[in-house]
């Protein structure tokens, strides 16, 4: 019986070696990413095409869901079978990997090509730089501080389009009376916390955001302003329909596109949904960054390159890193993705009215907002989001309780 089992093992072994031998060639690179939907696929294809035009092979490992993809990357690093390159967000997600010496330093190519001179905004350099060396390549910028407005719905309801969250709260009952859903929301934790962060930054400003998320200043957190933001967040709840829990963000966007809902608070990627539906920016729909002061956050994606014992792999990795920041590649990639490039000398002629607003804003260093995940570990951010999502969904969860639970997270050292 044992013999039989071992024979079986040997029989199945070659099956796995066939695939291994494929990967033994010249400049081959396996890339793990989570860009699996329409526009994202188009964008990652631009990278792959550019790579293959250089005479190389691109092995695509697309895994749906950032969590699954990042988990796979980490598992494979631990298991000793890392990919050539892997996607992470602009955040602290991969700090551990750098600290444990698992990532390839890109300093050679970064200093040779002068990355520090052309990467813009400069805050992106902070994300990638550890002890004077580059460990990641930022590839695009997304901002999440946008309010998407269906102009027709506001016209029908006979109320002016809002420029701030408070203005929206003032006119929302009229929209409701006119038979529309004032606020389209997808009830997933990340969407709820995105909305809350917009409420926070647009009403309380960027310095306050830094004090709480960056400095973890308990007295600033407890000075009454955060409670106010939570209360506003809860006030917005009245204008959300019951079907929200679990709804995908693009289904919520579709509600605004189709004129069922008036407003969605969502990142700049929502623009793609309007474009697909043939809607024109500033004519059919409007994009507004709410608040007296306009801020844009720096979200987006980076690629990291896990260390390998094979010196040839390093060569491949540096070459790919260099390709990703190339201005021509950047233009193609970001136009397909609908995101902003990570350098200013990129051709953005294809940008629409809303995208141009974003491009203008990131040129002003005072308008740049650091999100909680620029300061904090994923564990911290997610524990924070837990409280926010439960707070939105459970009307019995009082502001005071939520404040206590948030303070626990704030002081937890996560």
């Amino acid at each position, binding site marked *: 019986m044992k013999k039989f089992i071992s024979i079986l093992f040997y029989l199945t072994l070659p099956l796995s070696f066939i695939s291994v031998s494929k990967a033994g060639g010249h400049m081959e690179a396996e890339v793990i990413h989570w860009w699996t939907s329409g526009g994202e696929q188009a964008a990652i294809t631009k990278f792959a095409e550019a790579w293959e035009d250089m005479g190389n092979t691109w092995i695509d490992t697309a895994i749906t869901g950032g969590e699954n993809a990042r988990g796979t990357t980490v598992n494979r690093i631990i298991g000793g079978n890392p990919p050539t390159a892997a996607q992470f967000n602009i955040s602290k997600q991969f700090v551990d990997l750098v600290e444990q010496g698992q990532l390839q330093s890109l300093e050679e190519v970064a200093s040779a090509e002068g990355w520090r001179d052309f990467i813009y905004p400069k805050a992106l350099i902070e994300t990638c730089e550890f002890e004077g060396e580059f460990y990641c390549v930022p590839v695009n910028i997304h901002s999440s501080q946008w309010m998407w407005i269906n102009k027709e719905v506001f016209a029908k309801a006979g109320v002016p389009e809002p420029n701030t969250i408070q203005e929206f709260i003032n006119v929302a009952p009229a929209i409701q009376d006119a038979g529309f859903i004032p606020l389209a929301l997808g009830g997933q934790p990340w969407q709820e916390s995105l909305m809350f962060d917009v409420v926070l930054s647009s009403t309380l400003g960027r310095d306050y955001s830094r004090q709480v998320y960056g400095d973890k200043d308990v007295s600033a957190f407890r000075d009454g302003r955060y409670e106010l933001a939570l209360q506003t967040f809860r006030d917005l709840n009245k204008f959300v329909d019951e079907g929200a829990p679990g709804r995908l963000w693009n289904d919520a966007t579709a509600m605004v596109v189709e004129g069922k809902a008036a407003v969605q608070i969502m990142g700049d990627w929502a623009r793609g949904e309007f474009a697909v539906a043939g809607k024109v920016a500033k004519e059919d729909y409007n994009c507004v960054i709410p608040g007296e002061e306009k801020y844009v956050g720096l979200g987006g994606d980076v690629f990291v390159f896990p260390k390998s014992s094979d010196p040839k792999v390093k060569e491949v990795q540096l070459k790919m890193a260099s390709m990703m920041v190339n201005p021509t590649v950047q233009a193609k990639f970001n136009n397909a993705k609908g995101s902003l490039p990570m350098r200013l000398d990129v051709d953005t002629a294809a940008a629409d009215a809303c995208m141009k607003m974003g491009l203008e804003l990131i040129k002003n260093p005072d308008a740049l907002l650091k999100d909680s995940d620029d300061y904090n570990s994923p564990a911290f951010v997610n524990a924070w989001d*837990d409280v926010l999502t439960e707070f939105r969904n459970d009307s019995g969860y009082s502001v005071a309780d939520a404040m206590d639970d948030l303070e626990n997270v704030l002081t937890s050292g996560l």
Partner: protein
Amino acid sequence: MFFKRNLGAKIALLPMIIISLTVFVGCIIYSFVYSLTNSKLIPVFNYVGFDQYERLFKTRKWDVAVENIFIYGIVFTIGCLVIGFLLAVLIDQKIRAESLFRTIFLYPYAMSFVVTGLVWKWVLNPTFGIEHSMHLWGFTWFELDWLVNRDLAIYAVCIAAVWQGAGFVMVLMLAGLRGIDEDIWKSLSIEGIPKWKSYIFVILPMIRPMVITSLVLIAAGVVKVYDLILALTSGGPGYSTTTPAMYVMENFFSRANLGQAFAASIIMFISVVCILAPWAYYEFYFRNREAKV
């Protein structure tokens, strides 16, 4: 002498012994050791004592998860047993097309949890699902908002799970019923006891082993419930349908919070041991001794 006796059996059981020791026991020890660290994305030995456990018990989400696993465990287990038994009794009534009905009740068991979750999410969706259908038929009062109602969402999970698991219990129970001697039925009918009474008071105790087996097989699934909830509610609305297994998984994967994940999984393991130990003691020690006597 020791090695010679039952040598074949010893060699044959070697894989089981090695796996039990290295994987099962080894993993528990490994998890416990790293639950005492503040490991984030990858396991690193930075000793922090029982901080992770302290944090775990201070987390509201964990409380919700524990509460949910009790609700799910009780409703799912009882639901499966009651419906499984009921269906088995019905099928046992010499009905026509017996094997057709049996197949209908059993097929959900062949589906993966992901599929079960997806299809029920679709059926219970308040915008497109059954509620919408009823409204189109004019029953505008009809409400089925379980998935978006934070108090009821966990019961929606239970329904989907019972739908999937009841057929398997039915088969086990049916096998038990078919093992009942014809003479018992004869004597029961001679004494004029109504059929439903006979099933509940006489037959049910007789198929007790099958009930226990069903219970064990169902219970082993309860602790691990993860894929189903992920596909059905992703733990929402809010985090009202989260479970301990989900808590562990998200800390492992999305949150890069390994220390916390290990601590939570150790607590899960200890709870399972506490529930299981008395049963295991009875089953393998007490009963074996009984048999020898």
